[in-house]
């Protein structure tokens, strides 16, 4: 099974809009939303059944038993995350605690224990030979990278007869993005023709290159700034990254999304352009055994 990951660096360039169009065009049997911070793919992929939900446990959180605590202050002094405070009693801030266990190790009276903590929820839609894996991180939680890994595992745990998996990624370049990159065959970056977009594009290209993943680029809303579109195309050429095409700004796209439909469900300019990008991407992914490595 070939895995295609859609990333962007900058947020709001159109990852989910394009991922949902690809899923529709490919009639994909296996797909996932790895933007566990702000998942949106489920809003636009029709699901006929309720998902199977499982709690996701991140790292445990420390808890201090005030009856055993002798207020020696060792836990507070050794905590690197400033998560222990004292105000009459010693207390752990569960949002700051990363569950490392140092406090428990230094406590001379065993007053500290590590308690499992729910850090999010995994959702799996599986019906008629189709599987969609997604999750929602609990607010203010860490360990989003670990949850991304779980989403991908969950997607692969359901055996479906699929030769393609489409994965919607998260913005940025940090832990959830790094976790989503592992094991994928190709990254399609959705770029945006703005100075900010170009700066972020360069950072995500570098990040993908560090993990040796084949990277290709398309530009969304290209006509909102043609000068910058040309700059991105020149950048692709210079870095020898295969360019997959331009998608125009299209107010019909917003209308389609707001009605819970993908841009290829309606007849519109952005839908036609994304079809061309899709065909080119599939050709490269399946027929030519991969493009130029970044």
């Amino acid at each position: 099974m070939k895995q295609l990951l859609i990333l962007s660096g900058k947020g709001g360039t159109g990852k989910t809009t394009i991922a949902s169009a690809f899923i529709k065009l490919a009639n994909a049997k296996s797909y996932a939303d790895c933007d566990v911070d702000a998942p949106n793919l489920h809003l636009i992929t029709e699901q006929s059944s309720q998902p199977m939900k499982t709690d996701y446990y991140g790292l445990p959180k420390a808890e201090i038993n005030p009856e055993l605590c002798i207020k020696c202050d060792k836990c507070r002094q050794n905590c690197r995350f400033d998560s222990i405070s004292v105000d009459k009693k010693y207390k752990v801030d569960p949002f700051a605690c990363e569950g490392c266990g140092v406090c428990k190790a230094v406590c001379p009276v065993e007053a500290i224990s590590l308690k499992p903590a729910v850090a999010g929820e995994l959702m799996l839609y599986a019906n008629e030979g189709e599987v969609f894996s997604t999750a929602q991180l609990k607010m203010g939680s860490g360990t989003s990278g670990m949850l991304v890994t779980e989403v991908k595992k969950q997607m692969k745990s359901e055996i479906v007869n699929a030769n393609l998996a489409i994965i919607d990624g998260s913005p940025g370049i940090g832990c959830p993005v790094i976790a989503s990159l592992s094991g994928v065959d190709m990254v399609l970056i959705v770029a945006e023709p703005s100075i900010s977009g170009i700066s972020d594009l360069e950072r995500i290209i570098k990040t993908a290159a560090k993990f040796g993943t084949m990277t290709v680029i398309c530009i969304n809303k290209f006509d909102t700034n043609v000068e910058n579109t040309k700059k991105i195309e020149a950048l692709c050429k210079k870095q020898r990254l295969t360019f997959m095409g331009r998608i125009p700004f299209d107010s019909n796209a917003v209308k389609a999304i707001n009605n819970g439909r993908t841009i290829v469900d309606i007849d519109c300019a952005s839908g036609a352009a994304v079809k061309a990008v899709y065909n080119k991407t599939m050709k490269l992914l399946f027929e030519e055994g991969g493009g130029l490595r970044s």
Partner: protein
Amino acid sequence: MRIAVLSGKGGTGKTLVSVNLAAVAKISTYIDCDVEEPNGHLFFKPEDVQEEEISVKIPKVNNELCNGCRKCIDFCKFNALAYIKDKLIVFEEVCHSCGGCIMLCPEKALTEREKVIGKVQKGTSDQVTVYTGILNTGEASGIPIIKKLLAENKPEADKLTFIDCPPGSACIVMESIKDADYCILVAEPTLFGVHNLNMVYELVKLFNKPFGVVLNKCIEGENPAENFCIEKNIKILDQIPFDNELGILNSNAEIAVRENEKYQALFSSLLETVKKEVQHETTSYS
């Protein structure tokens, strides 16, 4: 007065709002906490930039002292250590710098070394002090950089500080809004925008932060984000229309309020509304 600008969804206009508010306030501080993709500096093009590297502490192995007891490996909750072919290996990318392994090693085979993960820049643009945090590519967490950015700027009541937050609602956003006096949530009029607005709305409520919403990219007709605010009785601070001219200025990394009086007026009025809201909140809370 610290004002954090956040959105949940990416690309709704956090940087547009925070940069233009800081610029229209004239004397202010702008802090870019979106360390994975910092863009505010592209707009401000700050001068006299001073730079400081940010590092975290990572264990370093002396394999001559290590006797392979594996106590460190058993302890590490992040699986950042492994014993392979009679050698202790550190996986730097997943290390959380808790220091536990070093503390526990009975042979004193582990020591700490500094590893650079990014940098903080400080510069000026007219009378705006611009702070930027930049995470190096390939690094997992920008939280130490955000901590540094916010620790350098002790909150001052009479000084306006705008914090440009990362997207999402995870730990990194929480860290950015921790000391904020007020939060501006920027929302776009799409189904995705509303879903993510709801998430940050829950986040600011959880942390008990006073907040209001700016509706960006407004077009004629139904706005699902506006409906959401009305339904939840959320204060709408302002509506920024979808506007090609503003779009072009913004995509060319120009500061709209410095280029055009129309936008100067728009953001001045937003700033006044925000200031009033903050004063109202501080008086009603104290």
